[in-house]
């Protein structure tokens, strides 16, 4: 069992990691008043420009790590540091792509993408030029005046991506961004994500259930243990060459090899999580 195949390719001491979580524990108070520990003693380090995928069973606190990095939540214990600065308030230079649609339904596609620069005080004309440029890059030229409900799910995801990337974040956090898309659209979006990532090379933390997606996209795959109290079980370096074609890379022997290794680590956690949910179901039923 790979209990801790720790990352050996640490960035040099001269460059501070883009993201550093040290001994982070996060507790929530549930509406019934009890305390739920989502994360326990978690260490995570992401270098600048590194694409890190986090996989783990349901309810292991994957999404919670993202809220800690973005500054939407604070750790109960331990420290969250971004570019050497402790996180306080919303972390500047962070983009967040949510699992559900978070584009503003009452704004046109153009206004949605331009909103980041507008919030930061860029004049409207300049912001619109940048927004058109990013819409072209995500393949939505010609859809500027549509409202989000007039777009398909995949197109709304592109809007969300453009909306985040226009701010040129140094850190891009993605919370199962493609999980609501159909399989084909998902593969296409993954490819496009890699191309877009290559443009500005932010550090990415990509949370997903899908191990194939994680390996195909990432430089580093982090496996979390089953919650409550999720923590890092193992870290795997993905040494597949870039540029990658997401739809085809899964046939490479090295991909299959990595998949086996990581699945070995993940399987027992998935089993534990599954046993927990069925336990809960059984106690509720009886």
């Amino acid at each position, binding site marked *: 069992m790979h209990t801790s195949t720790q990352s050996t390719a640490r960035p040099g001491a001269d460059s501070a990691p883009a993201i550093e979580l040290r001994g982070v524990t996060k507790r929530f108070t549930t509406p019934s008043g009890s305390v739920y520990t989502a994360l326990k003693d978690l260490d995570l380090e992401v270098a600048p420009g590194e694409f890190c995928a986090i996989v783990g069973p349901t309810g292991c606190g994957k999404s919670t790590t993202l809220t800690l990095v*973005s500054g*939407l939540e604070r750790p109960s214990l331990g420290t969250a540091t971004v570019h050497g600065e402790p996180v306080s308030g*919303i972390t500047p230079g*962070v*983009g*967040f792509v*949510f699992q*559900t*649609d*978070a*584009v*503003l*339904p*009452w*704004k046109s596609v153009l206004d949605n993408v331009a*909103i*980041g620069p507008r*919030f*930061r005080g860029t004049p409207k004309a300049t912001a619109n030029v940048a927004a058109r440029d990013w819409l072209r890059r995500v*393949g939505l030229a010609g859809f500027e005046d549509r*409202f*989000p*409900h*007039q*777009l*398909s*799910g*995949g*197109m709304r995801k592109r809007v969300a991506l453009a*909306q*985040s990337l226009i*701010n040129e974040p140094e850190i891009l956090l993605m919370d199962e961004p493609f999980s609501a*898309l159909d399989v*084909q*659209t998902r593969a*296409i979006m993954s490819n496009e994500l890699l191309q877009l990532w290559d443009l500005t090379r932010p550090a990415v933390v990509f949370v997903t259930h899908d191990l194939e997606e994680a390996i195909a996209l990432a430089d580093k795959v982090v496996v979390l243990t089953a919650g409550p109290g999720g923590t890092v079980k193992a870290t795997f370096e993905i040494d597949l060459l870039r540029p990658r074609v997401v739809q085809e890379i899964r046939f490479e022997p090295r991909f299959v090899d990595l998949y086996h290794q990581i699945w070995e680590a993940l399987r027992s956690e998935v089993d534990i999580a599954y046993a927990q949910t069925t336990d809960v179901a059984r106690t509720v039923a009886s």
Partner: protein
Amino acid sequence: MSTDVAQPTATGESTESSENQRAYRAMLRRRRLLVRLTQFAVLIVLLGGWQLFVGGDSRKVILYGEPSGIANQLRTWVEHGTALGSLGDQIRVTLEEAIIGFFIGTALGIVCGIALGRIRFLADPRIVLGSVFILAFGLGIESKILLVIVLVFFGVFFNAFQGVREVDRNLIANATILGGSRWQVTRHVVLPSAFTWIIASLHVSFGFALIGAIVGEFLGASQGLGRLIRDAQGTFNANGVWAAMLIMGIVALTAEWFITRLENRLLRWRPPQLSGPDL
């Protein structure tokens, strides 16, 4: 890139399907006509029944009025004006009170509702009660507009408050991360989202505004529809009461039409309601 492009309605259709469509549309038209005719028939039956029931009996006329008398009364008012001045003036006075009160009440309701919804400290119930007391004591001033404001305020206020509470947390988180300040998030996310709730309350609130103005005029006024109703009531003129109520109804429906237009304009980002099965 073209895999997930939502195409607008296909343009090149075969002649067969366009013929089908034509037949379908013709059926819809026939159906709509049938509905209109039925509605008209019901109206005729109701009015005719009313007229026959009263049958010129002067006691019943005093109690219930009669459609022909109402029509006469309306004609007199339109042609010769009311005892208080021209009919247009009465409507204008009432509308003025209702509309001024409606706007102030709505504005206050929206501002208070959103402020309380956004700033948790203000939602402390004692502070809410404070504003209630101010409004309640203000009633001592016999002003129709104030009455309208009070009536309109609460409907709009609670809807605005609830609307703020119902805003999708994801949207707020997203806008915050994109760099929105608290005010910017309120302006670009909370307000538009809460507007669906607020607009819904405006339909009811305008009804309240009219009621407020008319009740206010009942209590004391020299002009207005409420005064007109009171005078008609005082002289046992049931036809006059009905006629004034009819005018009120028309005014309310017109206002409703304007509010619906406003709603469609402000909420044009919403997906159109698709016609589903009749359940």
